[in-house]
């Protein structure tokens, strides 16, 4: 019994000591452990999930309860992943040091920001809502209009957009190369690249590190998952009722929000309203150069959906109940006059009752799992203070405004 208490005590002592070292502005040390959900194999972190026990039809990663996952990204090192975590929270990545990735993808807000439309360095709302980063390891395309096919490509959007993080590639490189702590951390993450003295931090390393962190954000341990793996007591009767409505061919939710990821990763034209006063958002028409995809947007995953209100590309719906109700208010009911959209065939008139809508919300709330939520650093290699909580404050003010719409 002594041993049981002694070991943690020793651990604490070590933590205290290392804390003092940090306080003395010594080196940052990157983690040598993989993030939760990953196994360290030959220096690299590989995803492990109970869903890997199951196959899926033609490997597509869509199906029912016991269905395998879509293809995913992994294989980064623990150090690269942890470096990405620092970068993710560091406002030094923005043009004026006022925002970080976490400003719009806040860990406490489901890696979204609680805003209808996100706010970048200008203080003005941008065109669309920030999507969650949970489970991006499994996605084939990024942005609401699917205009990026990798995370590395995606992050250059917000990083270098004048309305979002307002940086430029040159300035970003100059900033990070000018911070000794970062040079040291990049050398820890890519020792072979920094073997020579004059080695500089490169853009592809920055993108890779942030990608490494983002693909570690795995959420597959919700109560729904417990049910899926065979523990049927994990869900209450109303939640199971909701699940059956969700997968029924009346509500048809699971036809596009298909397990196990709760998205089929397709683009769908469903005709949700844009915010008041905003021009009609043509969505994927621009990406695909395809007029019939006018107003088409990527089907979002519903995992952790309870954490990421408001909903849809425009953040138009304040609650899950409102979002669910949209589907039963009539095919194309919110399409502006003069717009001819090829509304998806699964949008019909399911005539869901109030009770059924409530049950759907009950079920969607069972998809919440933050058990692998990463730590938020309280100290950053740039020496700057984390700012994402300031922006989140701004977010909660804006929420009120959204609800008035």
């Amino acid at each position: 019994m002594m041993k049981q208490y002694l070991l943690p005590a020793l651990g604490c002592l070590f933590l205290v000591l290392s804390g003092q070292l940090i306080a003395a502005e010594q080196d940052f040390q990157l983690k040598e452990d993989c993030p939760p959900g990953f196994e360290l194999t030959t220096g690299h972190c590989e995803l492990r999930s109970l869903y890997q026990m199951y196959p899926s039809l033609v490997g597509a990663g869509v199906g029912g309860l016991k269905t395998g996952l879509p293809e995913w990204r992994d294989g980064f090192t623990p150090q690269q992943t942890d470096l990405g975590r620092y970068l993710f929270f560091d406002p030094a990545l923005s043009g004026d040091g006022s925002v970080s990735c976490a400003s719009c993808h806040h860990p406490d807000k489901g890696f979204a920001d609680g805003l209808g439309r996100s706010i970048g360095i200008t203080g003005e709302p941008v065109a669309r809502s920030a999507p969650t980063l949970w489970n991006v390891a499994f996605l084939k395309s990024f942005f609401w209009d699917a205009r990026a096919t990798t995370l590395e490509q995606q992050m250059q959007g917000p990083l270098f957009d004048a309305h979002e993080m307002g940086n430029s590639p040159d300035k970003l490189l100059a900033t990070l190369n000018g911070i000794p702590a970062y040079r040291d951390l990049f050398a820890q993450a890519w020792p072979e690249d920094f073997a020579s003295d004059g080695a500089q931090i490169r853009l592809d390393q920055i993108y890779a590190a942030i990608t490494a962190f983002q693909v570690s954000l795995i959420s597959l341990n919700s109560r729904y998952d417990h049910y899926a793996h065979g523990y049927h007591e994990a869900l209450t009767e109303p939640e199971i009722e909701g699940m059956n409505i969700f997968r029924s061919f009346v509500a048809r939710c699971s036809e596009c929000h298909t397990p196990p990821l709760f998205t089929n990763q397709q683009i769908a034209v469903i005709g949700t309203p844009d915010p008041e006063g905003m021009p009609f958002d043509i969505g994927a028409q621009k990406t695909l150069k395809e007029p019939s995809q006018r107003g088409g947007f990527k089907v979002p995953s519903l995992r952790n959906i309870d954490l990421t209100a408001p909903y849809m590309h425009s953040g138009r719906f304040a609650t899950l109940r409102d979002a669910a109700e949209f589907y039963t208010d009539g095919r194309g009911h919110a399409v502006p006059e003069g717009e001819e959209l090829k509304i998806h065939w699964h949008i019909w008139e399911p005539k869901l009752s109030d009770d059924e809508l409530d049950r759907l919300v009950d079920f969607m709330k069972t998809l919440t799992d933050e058990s692998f939520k990463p730590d938020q650093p309280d100290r950053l290699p740039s020496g700057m203070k984390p700012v994402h909580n300031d922006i989140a404050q701004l977010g909660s003010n804006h929420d009120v405004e959204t609800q008035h719409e």
Partner: protein
Amino acid sequence: MNKLAVAVGALVLLGGGYFLGQGKQSEPTVIKVASEPKAAFTSSGSDEVAAATTGALSVRSLETPTSGELIVVKDGESIQDAVKAASPGAVIKVMPGTYKETVYIDKDNITLSGVIEQGRYPVLEGEGVRNDAVLYSGNGVTIENLYITHYKGNGIMGQAGNNYIIRNNYVVDTGVYGIFPQLGKNGIVSHNIISGIEDAAIYVGMSDHVDVVYNQVYESVAGIEIENSRHALVEANYVYNNTGGILAFITPGLPIKTCGDVLIRNNFVVNNNHENFAIPGSLVSNIPAGAGILNMACDDVVIEGNIITGNDSVGILLTDFSLATSAAKDPDSEPNPNRPKILNNIMQNNGTNPAPLVRAFLATQLETQGPDIVDTVGMDDGCILNPERFRTLGLDKYGDCEFSNTSNVVSYTLPEPVPPRSKEGFKKGKLAYYGVCAGCHAYNSRMIGPPTQILQALYMDNPEGIAAYAANPVKKRDDYPEMPPQGHLDEETLMAAAKYMLKVKK
């Protein structure tokens, strides 16, 4: 509105690079006698089935494994209660009576079997308010001998269940699809009688290796639809008075984007002239009434030995997405019905009263009567036997088929069931440790729970101790929060995870 839709449809057909081939057969019929037999039919599906066949050949021998457990459900009781009580391998027998419920089966190897007495079936009654009659996600289900009526959604719907058997059911006046297995592999849909469905009576969606045989489908918008699926045999079905009889489709915008290796063989496809009563916006709302067999974008479809008569618009229609005017285009879905094969069908009396969409098209060909067979794309990789027998449009580039029949394929179901889901070679304990336990336990650093290294020192050779504790934890340490119970993992998984936890080294 209808007129407008027709005009738009015809324009789309014309505008979509429509192949306007020589419609009339003007050359004299050439009589040939083969000097040697043609090659045997081969396909990826038949190869796969043949390769898996060892020992004596048996056709559709798939059976749901049973354990001897029997649960009898009587009128007034709940079928779902029986499903909840059932273990994998159970047979649930449902006595005649009326059951007003949705039954969902999220377990493997469940047989749900109606008992028929003097022609009296157990009735699943949706009363126009319930969504679906039967949902299943488990592997190896059998659903048989039920009478399903008045549901709003589907009669029987599967999501990713493999090795399924759906047979001997009546589905009457029930919503969107009568029988809808989706995202599963290896199944049989046979001897069902289905009518009054506002989309497809039998709809095989995104599936592999399925036989749809000996069914009677009528008075529905689509009789049988094979969609975004591979290796499907549609044989010996009686398909009449639907809007469209038998369909092989790619629906654009789905996550599985191919359709191919479909045999439509020896069916009766008769008088499919029902008014289209599909839901607006659905893909089948585009089907012209009077279409016998319809292939939109599905590859390697063999249409063989069917009796196709009395379909007022056209006997066989092959087309691309120009028919799907209501759907957004999907650049990742290939639109053409590649390599069509048409063998020895009996066709008579088709096209005598074409639907407006078809009539508008025929007018562009200076025709008034619908053909037996039309290919609106004008594929150049198709084949047809004895083309002189049929009135055709757009088949000018079709060649002679290299095989004369597909009789060497008796089934597209697999001789052995698809194995259970837990894949060999994957260590359950490792997956559970990293996938679940690692949320709180890192190897040698403190997270929410104590490091694995400490637990290893504590438990040493006692994985049972870890498994038991994890299932029912109690507060042990002041400096850590109480562990949440992990009873959602079954005993076997918990033990495997505990063993892995004790041996992990980093």
